[in-house]
């Protein structure tokens, strides 16, 4: 198979300035336009931010270990919840998926590189600038934003000196992800190998195509919303200022028009990774490929018309409450199709349980749990109890941690041997899996009980009847946090040589039947598919 991919037939005017392997020295990483280099940069940056955001989470859980104020003052605590969310969403999860797209999309569709390599470099460095700017607000007079990641006015307008910097950082992050999304969409639509039709594309590519469109549609709306905050604060406009005839609730509508599709930006590529990994370890083609494609598109479409399920309590006419309630419930249908298909793919498969598969199975189970609590909250009258309590914290952490984060881990284990040419340590990988899966449930499951019992979110102190579950949740949090150091160890260890075992080109048994990337040598050469492959493996009908 790999004979097809004669990646060494360098033809100089095909890729002008970078035809003979990476540049020497550290400058390579600054000026690189190679999709693999940029993918690596994104992934390592995301990993670093995962630990930064994780440290903030540890501070939060330490403070909540016991009732009363222990370690930090309330203002800083609130900064921590706000910054934890912003760093994890915009610094860790989204960049990690962009990094995966950079690495894998060209290799999966048989393209030599991304459509716009130079823009690719630019979007990465804008991301770094945006996150650094955001982090710098921690050291400003008045502290970092502390009104929640949703940046609701009027509260967020009470932020000190940091406000304009936080807003500019959102602008930078927005521009960066729009550029990244445009690049990915252009690559997928224009750079596919001639024989790769849309309905032959791997699911990961499909989910990213749709995510790319989502990002292009919503990031500008978020940029607009924060620009309105900025002009309200400094230029006497009154979009959200009641004194001038504005309405703070308007902000919530604009924010959630962005915010709800945004949560799908984080989950659709997650679905894509799951649909990639599960068939390989079940040794079966993906069940219901075309229904997976349509379900993804349906979820993306629906995500634009359900935003006010975040606002059931602001006061809407009954017709609005009912509309948003039923529309939200509809999302469970295409989501259910996906869960069904993953399960059916595993059904009677010759399954083996290497680390990537373990994470994928945990994802299917635990994401479904998060979906169920979502369904509970979509019931408008019931949501009056759940809203702004720890119940919703439990909901979205189930959809983000054992879903998005777990599948990012799974993707790491799955593709690392291909990227580095070295095998990771399976024993430590499985230890990482079990510790993470057990502790993530100790961490988040009790938060359902806390929420139902009435503990509000975003508070540094609480009534004593919440003590026990909080302590258990914190213990789970510390174990989870510590376990992630194992992943860091594995990444470093694998890059340095791993188990020393020589990995084959296909790495996983028969993987070449599931994706073009496994037809390439391990480690992948710096340039691949300079000429498009002619034979496309197809793991579905």
């Amino acid at each position, binding site marked *: 198979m790999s004979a097809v991919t004669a990646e060494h037939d360098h033809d100089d005017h*095909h*890729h002008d300035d970078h035809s003979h392997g990476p540049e020497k020295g550290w400058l390579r990483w600054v000026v690189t336009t190679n999709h693999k280099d940029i993918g690596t940069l994104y992934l390592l940056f995301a990993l670093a931010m995962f630990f930064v955001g994780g440290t903030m989470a540890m501070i939060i859980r330490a403070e909540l270990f016991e009732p009363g104020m222990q370690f930090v003052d309330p203002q800083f605590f609130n900064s921590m919840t706000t910054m934890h969310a912003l760093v994890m969403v915009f610094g860790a999860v989204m960049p990690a998926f962009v990094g995966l797209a950079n690495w894998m999309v060209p290799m999966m569709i048989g393209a*030599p*590189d991304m*459509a*716009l390599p130079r*823009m690719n470099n630019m979007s990465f460095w804008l991301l770094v600038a945006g996150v650094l700017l955001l982090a710098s607000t921690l050291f400003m007079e008045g502290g970092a934003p502390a009104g929640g990641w949703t940046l609701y006015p*009027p509260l967020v307008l*009470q932020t000190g000196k940091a406000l304009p910097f936080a807003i500019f950082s959102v602008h930078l992050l927005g521009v960066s992800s*729009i550029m990244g999304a*445009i690049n990915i*969409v*252009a690559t997928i*639509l*224009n*750079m596919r190998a001639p024989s790769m039709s849309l309905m032959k594309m791997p699911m990961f590519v499909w989910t990213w195509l749709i995510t790319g469109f989502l990002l*292009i*549609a*919503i*990031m*500008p*709306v*978020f*940029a*607009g*919303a924060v620009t*309105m905050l900025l002009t309200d604060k400094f230029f*006497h406009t009154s*979009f959200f200022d*009641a*004194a*001038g*005839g504005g*309405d703070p*609730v*308007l902000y919530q*509508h*604009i924010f959630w*028009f962005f915010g709800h599709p945004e949560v799908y930006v984080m989950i659709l590529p997650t679905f894509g990774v799951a649909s990639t990994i599960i068939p390989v370890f079940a040794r079966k083609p993906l069940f219901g490929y075309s229904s997976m494609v349509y379900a993804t598109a349906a979820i993306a479409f629906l995500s634009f018309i359900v935003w006010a399920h975040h606002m059931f309590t602001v*006061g*809407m*006419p009954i*017709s*609005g409450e009912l509309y948003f309630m039923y529309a939200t419930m509809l999302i469970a249908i295409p989501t259910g199709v996906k869960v069904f298909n993953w399960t059916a793919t595993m059904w009677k498969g010759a399954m083996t349980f290497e680390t990537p598969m373990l994470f994928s199975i945990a994802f299917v189970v635990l994401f479904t749990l998060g979906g169920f609590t979502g369904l509970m909250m979509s019931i408008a009258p019931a949501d009056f109890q759940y809203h702004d309590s720890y119940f919703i914290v439990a909901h979205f952490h189930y959809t983000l941690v054992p879903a998005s984060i777990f599948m990012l881990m799974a993707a790491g284990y799955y593709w690392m041997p291909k990227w580095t040419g070295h095998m990771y340590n399976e024993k430590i990988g499985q230890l990482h899996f079990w510790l993470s899966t057990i502790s993530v449930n100790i961490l988040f499951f009790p938060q359902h009980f806390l929420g139902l019992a009435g503990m509000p979110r975003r508070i540094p102190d609480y009534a004593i009847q919440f003590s026990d579950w909080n302590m258990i949740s914190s213990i789970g949090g510390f174990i989870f946090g510590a376990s992630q150091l194992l992943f860091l160890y594995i990444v470093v260890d694998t890059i340095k040589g791993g188990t020393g075992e020589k990995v084959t080109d296909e790495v996983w048994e028969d993987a070449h039947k599931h994706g073009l990337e496994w037809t390439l040598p391990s480690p992948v050469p710096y340039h691949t598919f300079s000429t498009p492959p002619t034979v496309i493996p197809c793991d579905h009908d």
Partner: protein
Amino acid sequence: MNEDVAVKNKRLVRNLAIVAIAMFGFGYALVPLYDVLCEWKWIERDRPDAIKAIPETAYEIDKEREVNVEFMTTLNESTPMIFGAEMTQLKVHPGEYHTVNFYAENKTAAPMVARAIPSFSPALTSTYFEKVECFCFSEQTFAPHERKVMPMRFVLNPALPHEYKTITLSYTFFDNTQTAIKK
């Protein structure tokens, strides 16, 4: 990559960039759209007529019904005032006129321009809450340490749907002195 693909990429990137810019505009278009949706009652919001004087009309008093009207007074963040109402609630018959006195005091030694903004809960009742006289119709100027008593005269339009038994009217005073100076 060959010429063809380069041209296609360029065109696609241009189109997608146009979409992104259009969506930025769409964010702003949501502002007037929001008002329209409120007008159509798709979204619940205090009507603009809640801060407009309505000429006193004689309604037939509906002695059968009694609606509890609650008054709340709030100061926006760091507005240096004292603000209150002479009563926290009042039982009224639709069609019957009432006057309630509010009082406000400038706590500073400087002149102050402030604005009270009403808000109703449930918001849809604002259409039926007709005010003939209110301190909220315009900005109020306070001399240093001045204390004012400000009457608010209102009637509940008897067309008020029967399911509304309690209406909460909340006023928030905003300190607009800085904005007034700039103007």
